[in-house]
Structure formats: C-alpha cells, structure tokens
C-alpha cells in the first residue's frame, strides 16, 4: 500500500511553514526532500511520522508503518550496542538484529557501550535501528550526518536493499546518495508568511 500525502499544511509552534504539499510514495520507491535550512523539511517529516498534527490536509497509509530516524538516535550510553538494538527490536516485536549489525558494520563492537562509540558509529547504530523495526516506510531526517564516505555508501546500500524488498523511503538529505529517487523541493510549497504581514498592514 502506498503512502499518500494530500494537500498537507504543516507548521511549527502555530507558524505555518509549508502548505499544499502532495505526493505519493509507492513500494520500492524513494523520495528525497530538498530545501534550505528552516524551510520545513523536518516539520514535514515529523508530521508524516505522526509526531505532530497536520494543520490541514491528509496523510494516508502511514499508521503503524513508519520507522522514523532524526538527528537524535535515541541511544542509551549505559547500554551496549546489542542491548540498544535488541531493545528497539523487542519494542517493534522483532527478534533478528544480526543483519542490521552486519549491514552497518557494527559486528566488531557488539559488547561496547553506546557511550564509548564515536559520533559516526553512534549514527550507524541509530540507522541500524531502522532495519530492526520491520516497518516498510523509512522516514529519515538528514541520515548521513557525521557519517564518513564508506559509511554513507553502506547506508545507501541498506536503503537500496530496503527498497528492493518493497520498502519505501522518505528522506531529507543534502548529499547525493546515488539512489534512484524522486526529488521534491519544498521551497515551492512555502506557506506565505508575507500574506499575514500584508494583511496586518491593511488592517492598520
């Protein structure tokens, strides 16, 4: 079943950021969001993931099917790599974590505590979490932050494998991952903050 976003308007703290966003994502496809900082990519992704309500419009096909990954990886410094990943697998009702460890080259430090990992290793562990959720739609917010070139390639492979297995990916990223994906530039949907100002002037 595809993910359909219809005429979606999103905002942060009551301030509208984007309006009229529509797209459809079918199994095996990826969609990359582009736009400058502060243009509303994160807010759009959070709204699609159900973390905040839409100001208008509709998101269909997202319920209980989204694995969300943002800037914070949700790792516990006092738990080991395996315990962190195992926890998320258990939360999502899965048990298999070995493929995720292998895909992100984490097999070498399974017993190490997350607090002792480097920023890039933590990020890899955070992304490996996506694989243990078993969810078809990956919603990713700048997934490649603090990853080196080799790790970016590894991540791109994981996304490709996910798509090949009928999964979907919706991501905001500035670098080219080399994945065949549709591109949505959010600058075209920017809510007109100017109209509010003009209205105020007319009122005065």
């Amino acid at each position, binding site marked *: 079943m595809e993910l359909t976003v219809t005429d979606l308007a999103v905002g942060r703290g009551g301030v509208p950021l984007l309006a009229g966003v529509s797209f459809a994502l079918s199994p095996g496809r990826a969609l990359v969001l582009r736009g400058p900082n502060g243009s509303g990519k994160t807010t759009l992704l959070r709204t699609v993931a159900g*973390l905040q*309500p839409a100001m208008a419009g509709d998101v269909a096909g997202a319920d209980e099917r989204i694995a*969300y990954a943002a800037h*914070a990886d*949700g*790792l*516990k410094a006092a738990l080991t790599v395996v*315990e962190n990943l195992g*926890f998320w697998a258990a939360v999502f009702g899965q048990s298999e974590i070995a493929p995720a460890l292998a895909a992100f080259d984490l097999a070498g430090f399974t017993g190490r505590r997350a607090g002792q990992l480097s920023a890039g290793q933590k990020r890899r562990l955070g992304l490996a979490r996506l694989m243990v959720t078993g969810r078809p739609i990956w919603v990713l917010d700048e997934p490649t932050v603090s990853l080196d070139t080799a790790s970016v390639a590894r991540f791109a492979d994981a996304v490709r494998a996910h798509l090949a297995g009928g999964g979907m990916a919706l991501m905001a990223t500035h670098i080219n991952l080399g994945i065949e994906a549709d591109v949505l530039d959010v600058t075209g949907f920017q809510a007109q903050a100017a109209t509010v100002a003009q209205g105020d002037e007319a009122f005065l």
Partner: protein
Amino acid sequence: MRALFFRDLRLALRAGGGFGLGIAFFLIVVVLVPFSVGAEVTLLSRIAPGVLWLGALLACLLSLDRLLAVDWEDGALDLLATSPLPLEGIVAVKAAAHWVTTGLPLVLAAPLFGILLNLPVGGYGTLVLSLGLGTPALSMIGAFGAALTVGIKRGGLLLSLLVLPLYVPTLIFGAEAARRAAQGLDAATPLMLLAGVSGAVLACMPFAAGAVLRVNLR
C-alpha cells in the same frame, strides 16, 4: 512493554541514581530529624510515622525529573512515540520501573529507619503496608508531572511544584494509617481510603499523562 520496563531497570542499575540515591536521601532526612527537633524519645516516637512518610515522599520526588527528560533529550521518546506501544502504556511502564527502583527500596528500608526514630513496635507492619500501597501512586503522579514538564529545560523545580499538591491525599491517608497503628488504634479506614486513592491514580493517570505527552511532543 516488557523490554521498556527491563531497559529502564537496567539503566537505573547501571547509571546509578536509582536504588542508592533515594534511600540515601531518605536516610539523611530521618537522621536529620532528631538533630532539628531534639533527641527526646517520646517526641520522636510520636512524630515518627509522619516523618517517615514525608521522607519517603521527598525521596520519591528526587528522581522524577529524569523519568522522561532523559528519553526526551536523546530522542528516544520520539522514537517510542512512533513505535507500536501506546504513549499511555509507555508512561505507565516507566512509572512502574521508577517505583521498582525508587519506591520499593524505600518501602523495604522504612522499618529499618523506623528504629532510628523509635517508632512504636505496633506501627511497623502498617507503616510498610501503607507505604506499599501509597508509593506506586507517588510514582504514577510523578510520571504525570514529568510528562507535563518534559519539554522544559530545568523543569525539575516546576515538576516539584506541580506534583507536591497532588501528593497531598496520598500523604494524608498514608501518614494517618501509620500514625494510628503506631498509637495502637485501628488503621483500617485510612488504609482503605489510601488504597482507593492509589487505585484511582493508577487507573486514570496513565491516560492523563499520555494525553499531555502527546501535546508536548509536537
């Protein structure tokens, strides 16, 4: 759910601040009381149930500000909110883990600390029973307060201000039961009322906390 419960227990054990801190705080409060009111044995016996209850309540309050804030800061709360677990269940499970790591040790340590305050012999059983009935409600109310203040930096003080008034019914009936038992009176009525308060809190608060958390995550 079970995974979340055991993760929280493990974190409390590993990161410290769980089992040890609350008990140590409780002990210090109990030890400070004779210094402040004087070491007169009859006076201490009379105020012991109230002091023990108040000490346990404050010790319970101590670790509440980390209950949800840690998961908020490292992003785990967002990820949990997108997981199959309902937010109400997440809050309830975290409150349960808080009780096991903070409330339960207080309940078990209370008779020992009762000796320090010369608690009358007849009061020990009811003291433990009343704390056992009351502290789960303290953890659950605390989780509600933590959900209210989750997005606020340094929300610990605000959390205390919000939560302490809500602790009043539990404290009144809990301390009253312990006091009556210590004086050799029948403590059944306050115990039943305490159980009623705790039952209502445990039944309603997860939903209130879940609703509040949903708003705060936006």
